């Protein structure tokens, strides 16, 4: 162990139910470094950091801080040891002000236990000056932009003066200028002698700011590298470990004479502005962009889940008017939503009930549901999508993520869709399930279903999509054909430079 090692973790394992999230991972970081944890979706990066921050506890393994073994029962305990984390989930109270959020639970008090507002203002002003951050202290957090909220989170961490600062995908929602700003702050932190751990998917970022990179793959450690010893190719190989093309099926023939689906001048509130595109027969169209630039709203808008939508939708050349989700489904628009647990599934109910849910009216004899038809439909879907379950009567909450996602897809297939919208279709599912999913998508396109995929995983976008539409601030900032796609080209559009 090096003298300047601040945190050392040995053989850390963690599983959730039957799913292994981390398997005997060793990890260490030094004083005064910026250390990136890299890896594919579901590689276990967040789990590792959450164990460090005390939000999760490891099943096995040891953790040493300054050479002393520690075990954190809560994030608060970790904070007391000088470790603080900015989570991907919002940890601000939306209705409170910036100032109140930053000083939550550590407010300076006068001798009557009343919060000393002068001291609060002074401390905050000092801190903002030190890190060159500009925010209105009295602004209510819910009125702030995502970047401003993130600044608030960072200030909330800084005011607690930790030694180790963990940032979980801090840049995924930021535009280019904001990323620069964040990096400036991170470098300042490093100058102040702090250790920064952060997760990023973007190779450019990793090379521009980190000192070291630790790569995880399939819940295991691949290795820890000095950034200066790496290049793009080496890093990708370490992260993916195989050629990208192997899990993606071959593209179909695309028939540009047949437009399966099209939107014209489509707007959703002020989130999506004047978007037009079409999907041809046999094609998978991707929608990319930074988090919060309208991708989800676009999909939900098409599926009529949002109000205040303007624009025209065409299916197979015919205009469709859908004001409610119900209309959209009847018109043949199906959506696999971003969060299968809260939006896609009824976790307590059985596989069969979930599969049947979106298309109940299709299997009725007069008044009553036709149970026989329901069962045979469920059986058919389980077979067609090779859903692994102990039977279609099992509650979906007992299925693995990949199989749950297949149930969501099966449910949507039940309505015999003409166009299928996927929002982050493979988030948190394993490689095998991913490749099965891609195969199903391809098969569906060859059957004439139009497919639109929103994904923040650029490798996925490049791998599966025939064309990608990049959104920036709700507008189309670029349409890239298969051969034009690269992480760089997509990112350029995503930050508005397309």
């Amino acid at each position, binding site marked *: 162990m090096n003298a300047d090692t601040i945190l050392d973790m040995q053989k850390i394992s963690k599983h959730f139910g039957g799913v292994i999230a981390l398997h005997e991972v060793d990890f260490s970081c030094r004083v005064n470094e910026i250390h990136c944890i890299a890896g594919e979706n579901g590689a276990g990066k967040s789990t590792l950091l959450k164990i460090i921050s005390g939000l999760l506890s490891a099943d096995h393994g040891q953790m040493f801080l300054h050479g002393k073994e520690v075990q954190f029962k809560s994030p608060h305990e970790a904070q007391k040891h000088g470790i603080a984390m900015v989570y991907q989930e919002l*940890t601000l109270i939306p209705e409170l002000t910036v100032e109140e959020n930053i000083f939550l639970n550590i407010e300076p008090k006068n001798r009557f236990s009343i919060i000393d507002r002068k001291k609060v203002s002074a401390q905050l002003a000092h801190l903002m000056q030190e890190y060159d951050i500009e925010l209105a202290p009295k602004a209510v957090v819910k009125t702030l932009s995502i970047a401003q909220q993130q600044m608030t989170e960072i200030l909330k961490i800084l005011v607690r003066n930790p030694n180790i600062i963990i940032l979980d995908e801090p840049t995924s929602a930021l535009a280019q200028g904001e990323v620069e700003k964040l990096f400036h702050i991170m470098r300042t932190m490093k100058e102040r002698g702090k250790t920064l751990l952060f997760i990023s998917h973007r190779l450019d970022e990793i090379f521009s700011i980190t000192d070291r990179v630790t790569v995880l793959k399939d819940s295991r450690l691949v290795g820890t590298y000095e950034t200066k010893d790496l290049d793009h190719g080496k890093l990708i190989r370490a992260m993916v470990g195989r050629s990208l093309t192997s899990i993606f099926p071959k593209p179909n023939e695309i028939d540009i004479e047949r437009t399966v689906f099209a939107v014209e001048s489509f707007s959703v509130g002020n989130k999506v502005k004047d978007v037009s595109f079409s999907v041809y027969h046999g094609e998978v169209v991707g929608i990319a962009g930074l988090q919060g630039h309208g991708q989800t709203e676009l999909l939900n808008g098409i599926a009529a889940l949002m109000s205040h939508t303007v624009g025209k939708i065409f299916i197979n050349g015919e205009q469709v008017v859908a004001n409610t989700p119900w209309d959209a489904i009847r018109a043949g628009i199906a959506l696999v939503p971003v969060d299968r647990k809260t939006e896609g599934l009824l976790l307590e109910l059985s596989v069969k009930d979930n599969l049947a849910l979106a298309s109940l009216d299709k299997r009725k004899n007069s008044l009553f549901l036709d149970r026989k038809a329901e069962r045979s439909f469920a059986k058919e879907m389980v077979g067609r999508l090779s859903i692994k379950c102990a039977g279609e009567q099992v509650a979906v909450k007992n299925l693995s993520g990949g199989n749950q996602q297949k149930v969501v897809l099966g449910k949507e297939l039940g309505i015999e869709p003409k166009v299928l919208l996927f929002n982050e279709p493979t988030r948190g599912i394993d490689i095998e399930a991913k490749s099965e999913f891609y195969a199903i998508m391809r098969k569906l396109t060859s059957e004439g279903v139009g497919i639109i995929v929103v994904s923040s995983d650029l490798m996925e976008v490049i791998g599966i999509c025939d064309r990608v539409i990049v959104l920036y601030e709700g507008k189309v900032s670029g349409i890239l054909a298969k051969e034009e796609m690269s992480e760089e080209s997509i990112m350029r559009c995503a930050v508005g430079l397309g």
Partner: protein
Amino acid sequence: MNQRIKRVNIQQMMQRNTHVMYMYLFLLVMVIVSGVLDPDFLSVRNINNLILSSLPIFIVSCAQMIILLMGDIDLSLGSIIGLVNVVFVMLMRPDQPFGYVTALLVALAVGTLCGFVNGFLITKLRLPSVIVTIATSNVFGGLALFACPVPGGKVHNLFSRFVMGRQGFPFPIVLMVITLVTIYLLTSRSTFGMKVRAVGGNQFAAYTTGISIARIKLTAYCLAGFLASLSAIFLTSQMRCSDATVGNSFTVNSLTVAVVGGTALSGSVGGVSGVIGGSFIIMIINNILNLINVSSFYQYVIQGLVLIFALAISSKRKK
């Protein structure tokens, strides 16, 4: 700090308080209309009456507000008032010079204990606050009715006269001011208040910030119970007897007052400055109905409608 940020600061503070400002505007209109409808309305005696009758609902609405700030709801406050009223009168020794001391202490303890029971069931058994407080409301109300099936009993005369401000010392006004200031400091200027709001706004955030959600909830429910018993003691001094059902209307009224006063059912938002205005609005409605000799039956219709309208308006505002 630069000018832009200062402007944003001021803007935001204004925005945060619009609801309360509109409410006070409404209150002002009500006062003027009432004064025109009936000149007696603005007499010193009537204003005094208003303070006396608003005080119990004001105190218990503070309790409801604290619970609402946590994103919970307390439907047992009315029953706690009934139970404390009964206990207080039962233990009262009107014939002894200090015959109210034990009763006072036990009454406050009983109210706090009721709050503790709510908090315990909600935090330790992880049950939703709505269903717990509906159930405990029945239990507390049942206990009160069991101990005192029909109104009766006596209250220590001197104590009651003192509390009602009939001994030369304006106790009701002092109590109102003390409650107002204390609850303001507690909910808007203390760490406790911030923690309560944090629990109501985002439990994950509260947890990662090191706030013990269970402890805050338990404390808040105890505090709510304590305030309810304070309200009950004042009410009892006013009515000078026990009546197990006396608190029944307070559950709905406390909700109405809190919501009219700008407290959000979704948590985090609200303050005592709104609650005091809200309680005056509700009491003036009752008062003016009496003064202009209109059937008190309208009271229920109006109160229910006020509650629903206030909620509808605040939900529209949120959109």
